[in-house]
């Protein structure tokens, strides 16, 4: 009992998030749906408190060995805190986007913030547990909130279609993943990843006796994750959902939700196969998983980039580009070595920054021109330099050119691939980057190389300001990489050592 009470401070961010969620609901009810902006401001303030708690936790965790396990299910380590911090950051950005979305109604949208917070809470639990049941719960909390968010404009046919497609695909893949988890439970007798890796009926012991059920179970669970992060055979929902969903929601799905999927995937594979002092069978099996991830990675980045070439809608193009980026992150994972995983973490952090910025830009233009067509950008580059120049920075970063954080991340991935015998994959990535240059720069071309348009660009300065800040961060972390790299190293280290 005193144990329980002592553990509570460790999950203070989660508790704060829950309280904030309830407070948002109550305030929205008290306002009777009028002036939902106030709810948005409350959400922003609350997220600030959660971020403050998380920063305290990060400092408190100190060395990587100081990880804690709460209630036997929740792992509080630097790895989870890293992703929680980025989640809170991107949630705050998304809330800002909602507040500044000129096409959004002003009244009766308090649920928007409520659902965003619910999804964030799901992410919090998803990224910080080794318990497959809690992982599934977190994933479902995130998914259910995301479905409703995707269909938030229920009068808009494309939004409703996005929600419908998302629900059907999501339900199917959740079922597949649950089946895999139940097989894992049947094989090892536990739903805890740490015990699965080292318990009496550990997976390692089962590899030698019966590899087939283990392989089936793990592939099924991986399929569930692959859906969440839109890796190639499970990517079909991505373009339609990203295009139909309201733009702030798209930025949430593309950034926070996808990174959370990766966090859970990293923990799942890491706890099972990236263990210090693992015996031969585990390493051999881990190498096979690595090979599988490498193939998926090559397929994902190639298909994502090739499909993005022909898109005329910016949101659709960014959807395919986010599929390609999932491939890049997978490449870091496929090395099955700490250096590759550090690079994957770094790339995810970079992905947060540059993609949020890019979607902010889409939102800015949508709220001026009413469309996200690349053609509608023609000649507008010089009209709003405060947004278009940051957008060029994001595009440069997404392509992976210096001096941006995207370049640093890609460079680290490339080196990790070459160092760990994945030279072919590194080359595939380099070729893919060249392909991506073409479609990213179609936007730049439309903005700056066309005849200057006669229209004015009366956008929102607050939105332009936040986009500008993101661009500054993108360049800053590209030039001064030491702190971000140190955070990534500490996170992966804490994942390796675990909470015992």
């Amino acid at each position, binding site marked *: *009992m*005193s144990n*329980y*009470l002592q553990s509570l401070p460790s999950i203070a961010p989660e508790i704060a998030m829950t309280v904030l969620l*309830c407070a948002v*609901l*109550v305030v929205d*009810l008290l306002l*009777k749906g009028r002036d939902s902006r106030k709810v948005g401001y409350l959400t922003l303030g609350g997220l600030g408190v959660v971020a403050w708690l998380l920063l305290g936790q990060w400092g408190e965790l100190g060395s990587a060995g100081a990880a804690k396990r709460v209630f036997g299910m929740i792992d509080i380590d630097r790895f989870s805190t890293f992703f929680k911090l980025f989640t809170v950051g991107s949630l705050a950005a998304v809330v800002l986007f909602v507040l500044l979305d*000129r*096409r*959004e*109604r002003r009244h009766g949208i308090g649920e928007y913030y409520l659902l965003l917070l619910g999804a964030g809470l799901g992410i919090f639990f998803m990224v910080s547990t080794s318990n497959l049941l809690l992982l599934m719960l977190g994933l479902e909390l995130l998914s259910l909130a995301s479905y409703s968010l995707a269909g*938030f*404009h*229920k*009068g*808009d046919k494309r939004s409703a279609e996005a929600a419908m497609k998302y629900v059907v695909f999501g339900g199917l893949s959740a079922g597949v993943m649950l089946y895999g988890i139940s097989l894992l439970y049947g094989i090892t007798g536990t739903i805890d990843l740490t015990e699965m890796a080292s318990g009496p009926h550990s997976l390692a012991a089962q590899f030698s*006796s*019966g590899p087939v059920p283990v392989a089936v179970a793990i592939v099924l669970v991986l399929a569930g994750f692959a859906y969440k992060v839109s890796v190639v055979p499970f990517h079909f929902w991505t373009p339609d959902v990203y295009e139909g969903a*309201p733009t702030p929601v798209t930025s949430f799905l593309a950034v926070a939700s996808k990174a959370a999927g990766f966090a859970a995937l990293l923990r799942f594979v890491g706890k099972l196969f990236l263990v210090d002092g693992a015996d031969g069978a585990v390493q051999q099996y881990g190498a096979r998983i690595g090979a599988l991830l490498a193939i998926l990675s090559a397929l994902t980045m190639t298909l994502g980039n090739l499909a993005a070439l022909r898109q005329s809608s910016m949101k659709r193009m960014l959807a395919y580009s986010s599929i390609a980026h999932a491939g890049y992150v997978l490449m870091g994972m496929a090395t099955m070595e700490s250096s590759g995983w550090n690079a994957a973490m770094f790339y995810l952090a970079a992905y947060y920054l540059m993609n949020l910025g890019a979607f902010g830009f889409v939102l800015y233009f949508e*709220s*001026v*021109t*009413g469309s996200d067509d690349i053609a509608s950008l023609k000649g507008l580059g010089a009209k709003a330099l405060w947004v278009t120049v940051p957008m060029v920075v994001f595009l440069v970063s997404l392509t992976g050119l210096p001096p941006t954080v995207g370049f640093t991340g890609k460079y680290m991935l490339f080196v990790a691939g070459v160092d760990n015998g994945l030279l072919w994959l590194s080359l595939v990535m380099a070729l893919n980057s060249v392909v991506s240059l073409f479609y990213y720069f179609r936007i730049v071309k439309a903005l700056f190389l066309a005849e200057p348009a006669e*229209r*004015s660009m*009366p956008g929102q300065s607050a939105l332009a300001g936040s986009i500008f800040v993101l661009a500054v961060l993108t360049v800053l972390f590209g030039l001064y990489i030491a702190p971000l790299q140190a955070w990534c190293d500490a996170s992966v280290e804490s994942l390796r050592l675990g909470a015992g």
Partner: protein
Amino acid sequence: MYFDYFTVLVFASVGLAFVFANLLIASVLRPQRTQDEGLETYECGEVTIGEAWIQFDIRYYTVALVYVVFAVEIAFLFPWAIVLKEAYAGTGAGAGAGIGIFALIEGVIFLAVLALGLAYVWAKGDLDWVLTYSAQPYQPAGRESSNLPLVQELEKEQERLAEERKKAAAAAASSEAAA
């Protein structure tokens, strides 16, 4: 190596055999009557009206969701109550002492969150089955794109063009009349 799963196989085959054996026995024993009443969907005599593939009122789903909230509540509260009782009934000094009040607080928080859900449904008017005329009419929540500056600009432009066309047509008509 898969011997551990043998019990599963036995369980599955016995289960299947049980089902089909019962169906077989029933088909042998039951009287064979094929009058029209026997072929009705509801043999109790209720006459069916139409098909089941119709549009249901969306409010059924709301009610079903609210029902789920309370079903979950009950399902959770029973084991909670048992634990609470045991925690209080703990014998000797300190046995289970303390967890009782902790569990009570947790339970109250759980109920409060659920009550919040009920309050939300209530405030949003989803508990009123018959909507009054004072209730807000349904407005599809679309995107308000007509507020955007460029859209307004374009609309103005189109209006101007339409007017010009009208003027041109009028001018042409008048020149024709003059000719």
